């Protein structure tokens, strides 16, 4: 095992997969010579050449479409959005071409779209968005969102090897702030499987991405107050790991769903809905969502702090629920 950052984990996954499989290649803006806006692909063009680390014109729909075409011809493209926010420009290609190819005509489209998402970096409305909600009603896509270096590496490898289009939501706040152990040898984290980030018995906090760390912090304080939290890190947002979700609900009977995404129409809505539908008898309190308010992400530090769910918000929600 070795300790690496979340960002290094992503880079290693790319590097190892490119070394392993010549059909893997990277395309996007400034991914080559510059090494990407966040330096995730730094050094790869030197190693794999300018045809496998391809600087594209500023044209998200065009290069995403091109990735789809290359995938149909047996390649495994990894598309980098410079910021997740720009995925909106490739929405049509992802939703109507990539997502539907297999169902419509049996053609597999093994592309990965890396989407550096999330706020807390003073990026304002266009460099902070959580974009998973755009795609959660789109059958045919898979969406993953790691919270640790271990999962970042393992999920990216799994995504690259998967035969379906995968949107890989990497939280840019975690790039250099999260560091944990990954094995020296090759491994994957299977798509579709959540993980128990913390075992507990009184209440379940179901979350993903940067909020996993917020939940862990909250759980520590709550533990001190005698409340034992179980934290589920979803890891895959589409499709959801229902079994893991139902298991924790059956265990604790109390649920807080936490995400940085805005509340209405977020992933939390679906988590809540499947619980109501399938575990109603196990619940002994309302399913509470802690999420960002329904607005764009504001720029000023004062507002952004209120906007993004904080540890305190989670603690309040759990305590409220425990009093129910």
């Amino acid at each position, binding site marked *: 095992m070795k300790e690496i950052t979340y960002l290094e984990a992503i880079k290693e996954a790319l590097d190892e997969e490119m070394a392993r499989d010549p059909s893997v290649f990277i395309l996007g803006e400034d991914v080559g010579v510059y090494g990407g806006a966040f330096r995730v692909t730094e050094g790869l063009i030197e190693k794999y050449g300018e045809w496998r680390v391809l600087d594209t014109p500023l044209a998200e729909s065009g290069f995403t*479409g091109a*990735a789809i075409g*290359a995938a149909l011809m*047996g390649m495994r493209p990894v598309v980098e959005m410079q910021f997740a926010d720009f995925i909106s420009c490739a929405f049509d290609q992802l939703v109507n071409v990539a997502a539907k190819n297999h169902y*419509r005509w049996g*053609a597999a489209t093994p592309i990965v779209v890396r989407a550096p998402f999330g706020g807390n970096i003073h990026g304002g409305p266009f460099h902070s968005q959580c974009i998973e909600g755009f795609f959660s009603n789109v059958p045919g896509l898979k969406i993953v969102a790691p919270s640790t270096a271990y999962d970042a590496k393992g999920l990216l490898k799994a995504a690259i090897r998967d035969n379906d289009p995968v949107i890989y939501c990497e939280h840019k706040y975690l790039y250099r702030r999260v560091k944990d152990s990954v094995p020296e040898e090759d491994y994957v984290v299977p798509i579709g499987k959540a993980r128990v980030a913390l075992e507990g018995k009184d209440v379940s906090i179901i979350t993903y991405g940067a909020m996993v760390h917020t939940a862990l912090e909250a759980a520590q304080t709550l533990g001190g107050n005698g409340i034992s939290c179980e934290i589920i890190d979803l890891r895959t947002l589409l499709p959801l790991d229902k079994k893991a979700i139902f298991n924790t609900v059956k265990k604790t009977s109390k649920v807080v769903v936490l995400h940085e995404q805005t509340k209405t129409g977020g992933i939390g809505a679906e988590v809540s809905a499947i619980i109501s539908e399938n575990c109603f008898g196990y619940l002994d309190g309302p399913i509470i969502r802690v999420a960002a308010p329904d607005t764009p992400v504001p720029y000023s530090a004062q507002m952004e702090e209120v906007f993004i769910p904080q540890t305190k918000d989670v603690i309040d929600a759990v305590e409220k629920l425990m009093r129910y």
Partner: protein
Amino acid sequence: MDIRREELLRLYYYLKLARKLEERATSLYHQGKILGGVWTSYGMEAVSVGYGCALERDDVAAPYFRDMGAFLARGISAKRIMAQYLGKKTGVTGGKEGSTHIGDLNLGVFSFPSHLADNYPVGVGAALAFKIRGEKRIAVTCTGDGGTSRGDFHEAMNLAAVRKLPIVFFCNNNQYAYSTPLRLQMAVNNVADRALAYGIPSKTVDGNNVVEVYTAAKEAYTVARNSGGPTFIECKTMRVHGHSEHDSAKYVPRELLDAWKTKDPILTMERYLAGSVGMKQEELDGVTAQVVKEIDEAEKFAEESPYPDGTDCFTGLYATPIEEE
């Protein structure tokens, strides 16, 4: 370019096959047997027959919905297409999709996503794959005049030009996008002028002359195959009927329609084959007989094929399904 006799006959065969197949589909539609819409390439068959027949086996095509000739020339059989129209299990997509939303990776042809010009970047991606792997294959893609107004057209053309990819772009300029005439679509005289923005060489050909389309295609394919980069080929033709079977096209001036009807691509080809090439009428009749037989069989096959099960709708979403324990 010198075209061999067999090749000319092949072009003629696909022109007729496309025509007869779509005529039959139209009649099935009017009998109420096709539930969705029917959009044909009637009078414009030379475009996709021309570019489709000029391809080599390992090349790929990313067509649009009026490219029946290309689907056929790539090897998708009339039987499967007829069954597709009727929504049968034996159709190209087993009933998941309708009409010409067909593709088959084994035959090197991509399905068309309705969103016009979406296949432009996708086609470019196939060319990119060939370039990365150093394969001597090319890709082609086609859209209507209408589709060239979309952003994906622009992004695809530009990307292909910058990377000198082995792709040839086609445009079926049939002068209308649904009811919208060219003058409300663009302020240039030829769709081919659009290629100037990308440094892509372009050519405007008579889209009703299959030999001309085929010849221009072959030339551009050779350039692309030899790392010479993309070409844009505008095929000027006319949609001599409605946008689809439910459109009477009364927004099109009569004279324009009449003028173009005399330029029918099949008549044009027959005149050429009988004239310059000196082919006998019997030879042409032989082709026609073969085509009619094939279409009859296709219709019979399609009619007799079973419908899919309703519950087939649940299958096939993912290529790598997620195992639920």
